[in-house]
């Protein structure tokens, strides 16, 4: 609505462009990443903050230390955001328009091919997308696991 020619942002001529798709994906992922980052930072033990202070950290250094302590939680937020964005069809179809070679992406291709009845191609693309998503998630999970000491990893 915002991006249509007659809409409030119509003068930007963003409808059916990759830029509009990026903006839509950003709007979708932003709340998830923000919420998970915020909860990860709140979960950091207050003693950590005080310890940094008593070791002589400036307020800025204290903030950096707290973010560093919450890094694995923040990472989880990024993974969740990525998952949300990778699987998105509706929003990018609306603002991107699924133009071949320009704004067509894997998910919109799958939707299109399914509609056309090309189930083999749609399935193959689906499998590729799923595999890619698995690889990214597994590698991020392994990276995140490195941050948890072995004796408390079961919690």
């Amino acid at each position, binding site marked *: 609505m915002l991006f249509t020619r007659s809409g409030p942002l119509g003068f930007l001529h963003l409808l059916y462009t990759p830029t509009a798709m990026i903006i839509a994906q950003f709007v979708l992922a932003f709340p998830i990443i923000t919420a998970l980052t915020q909860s990860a930072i709140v979960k950091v*033990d207050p*003693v*950590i903050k*005080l*310890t*940094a*202070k*008593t*070791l*002589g*950290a*400036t307020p800025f*250094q204290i903030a950096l*230390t707290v973010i*560093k*302590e919450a890094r*694995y939680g923040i990472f989880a937020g990024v993974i969740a955001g990525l998952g949300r964005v990778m699987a998105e069809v509706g929003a990018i179809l609306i603002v991107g328009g699924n133009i071949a070679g320009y704004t067509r992406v894997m998910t919109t291709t799958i939707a299109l091919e399914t509609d056309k009845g090309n189930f083999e191609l749609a399935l193959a693309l689906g499998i590729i997308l799923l595999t890619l998503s698995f690889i990214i998630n597994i590698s991020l999970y392994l990276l995140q696991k490195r*941050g948890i*000491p*072995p*004796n*408390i990893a079961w919690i």
Partner: protein
Amino acid sequence: MDLKLIVSKIWKVYNNKPVLKDLSFIFDRKRIYVIMGPNGNGKTTFLKICALLEVPDKGKILYCNSNNIPLAKDINLFRKITYVFPQVGIFNASVFDNVAYGLKIRGFKKKEIVARVEEVLDFVGLMHKKKQNALTLSSGEAKRMGIARAMVINPEFIFLDEPTAFVDIENVKIIEKILLELKEKESSTIIIATHDTSFALKVGDVILKLEEGKILT
């Protein structure tokens, strides 16, 4: 420069009950002061007020230099005081990185950080655990790491809150040895809050009893 801590007529009230009443004391020597008393009688509150982590309801905390001039309560003063919490406050990083923290934020060069951290880790007997994640240390080792992390920055004042809580006898002995050696160096004034009498008698030069909001020497 020798710092002196002057506690002047401080009051602190919790839930309408005064924990510290008109308390005054001067910590002026590089010694080990031990504050004794049962749990919940204001030892930690007193220590936190002295370490500028809490503000008293009434009274003043002054850190004075050798000319008796009070210092401004800014980052330069905060960097001369350090506090070790009963839970230590361990960062999710290696023992080395935990101990090096105070030096890193002060902008020391890498070479000097390595030299100084290794020296204190050797001193507290944790050199062999240098690369281990500090969250996997036993509580006794964690307390020792907390002391090492405080020592490495050469502060004028070290506050230790319950350094022997949740620690086995072996580790208590090691902590006693560390503190006695530290005392001989005469580099810092150490103020300890504990309810462990035998530990207090072994390490303390001055034993203070906190009772009903007042200090008894």
